[in-house]
């Protein structure tokens, strides 16, 4: 239900001049006001009521008499009060504002007064009414357009776009070179059975001991014979210790060395075997 329809009927005969003479409202006026009141729930607020009332002036909204409109609205509110119809607060706020506007329009401007003049406010109200009306017309024009799903139609059997996952592999030149470097490094060590750098060979240890054995006249801890450069790294030290011990055993077998150990886990000592013949 649109409020406009309820209003237009009884108001069509109303001449807007009748508002300006300030006299008692005509019969049509009262009918109109009552029609508005009966419909008050159908209005979208005070501005809507004002727009509806303004139509009764049957002029371009730009030439609307805001003063007359204010009177119409206040009459509408009075009527509602007389009929003991409860109006929402915003209708009363609008009434108060329009009463204020009316007084501004009627009284000579107060030079002390700041803010917009009565004419400014009236012009703005007229602008708002015109703009609201324009938006309503636009809304109607939009809704009257051909519409998708009613007047024109989209594809009934849309074919969905299927997603295909494609995996591409990449590698950089750096990856490639690093890989090659890795392989080649590995390749260099491949012929060896174990890590030479950390393993002292028996031959090395024997060579070393044979050279030093002549000076081992007294019992000496065999650890003293470990190559100095093999002492830091525990891995190397362990390898050197094991191999040096193995080498002393070899020399004992050759009859060139004596070994002794005072107790389990005590240091192993070695001494050049003195030649029984000499």
């Amino acid at each position, binding site marked *: 239900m*649109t409020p406009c329809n309820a209003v237009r009927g009884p108001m069509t005969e109303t001449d807007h001049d009748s508002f300006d003479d300030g006299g008692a409202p005509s019969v049509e006026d009262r009918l109109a006001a009552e029609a508005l009141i009966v419909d008050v729930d159908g209005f*979208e*607020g*005070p*501005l*809507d009521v004002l727009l509806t009332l303004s139509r009764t002036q049957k002029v371009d909204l730009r030439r609307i008499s805001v003063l007359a409109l204010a009177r119409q609205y206040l009459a509408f509110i009075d009527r509602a009060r007389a009929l003991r119809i409860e109006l*929402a*607060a*915003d*209708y009363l*706020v*609008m009434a*108060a*504002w329009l009463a*204020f506007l009316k007084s501004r329009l009627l009284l000579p401007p107060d030079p002390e007064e700041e*803010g*917009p003049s009565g004419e*400014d*406010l009236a012009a*703005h*109200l007229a*602008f*708002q009414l*015109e*703009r*609201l009306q*324009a*938006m*309503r*017309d*636009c*809304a109607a*024009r*939009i*809704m009257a*357009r*051909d*519409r*998708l*799903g*009613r*007047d*024109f*139609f*989209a*594809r*009934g059997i*849309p*074919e*969905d*776009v299927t997603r295909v996952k494609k995996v591409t592999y990449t590698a950089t030149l750096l990856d490639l070179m690093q890989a090659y470097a890795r392989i080649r490094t590995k390749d260099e060590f491949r012929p060896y059975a174990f890590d030479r750098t950390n393993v002292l060979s028996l031959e090395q240890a024997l060579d070393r001991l044979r050279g030093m054995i002549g000076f081992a006249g007294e019992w000496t801890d065999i650890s003293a014979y470990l190559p100095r450069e093999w002492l830091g790294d525990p891995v190397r030290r362990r390898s050197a210790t094991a191999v040096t011990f193995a080498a002393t055993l070899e020399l004992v077998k050759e009859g060139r060395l004596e070994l002794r150990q005072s107790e389990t886990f005590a240091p192993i000592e070695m001494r050049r075997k003195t030649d029984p013949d000499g």
Partner: protein
Amino acid sequence: MGEQERMVEAMLFASAEPVSVADLNARMPHGSDAAEALVHLRKRYEGRGVHLVRVGDAWAMRTAPDLGFLMQKETVETRKLSRAAVETLAIIAYHQPVTRAEIEEIRGVSVSRGTVDQLLELEWIRFGRRKMTPGRPVTFVVTESFLDHFGLETARDLPGLKELRAAGLLESRPLSGAVPVAGAEGDADLEEETEEGQSELFED
């Protein structure tokens, strides 16, 4: 018929939704020019039962509106929009990007959350950029699917837009102490605005 024209034709036919030119190009072989193919294709479908229509930055195939009577079967029952929703939609379309406060200023009543929600749900409006004003309020704009639904190429093609602009009715003309906006269907989070309006009224 050019191969590219065929491709564009197939892609638009297959989709119920408008397809952007960028999307068309992305799916076509490298070096294709969908935009040019569209020009030819559009001409080809002139006066036919199916049209090529532009929707924002995208294109879609749609049946000719004069043949709607054949489609009762396809007609989708749409929920009737309230007067508030229709007006709010129109205000957003013509004033976009527009804040809720501006919509309320124009309508003279507060905008209920339900109205906005309904329009958002229909995907006819969406949030736009925040306005660079105090409080950085969100704005609303209409969507491509709004354009699609109402057969508009762009928001510039809205009926009467030029006249409204010429008449100055799309300008924002705030005036302090002007007509109060009140909350007929107002909800809680709108109170600030309505209070503001009213307090100004009683300051004088």
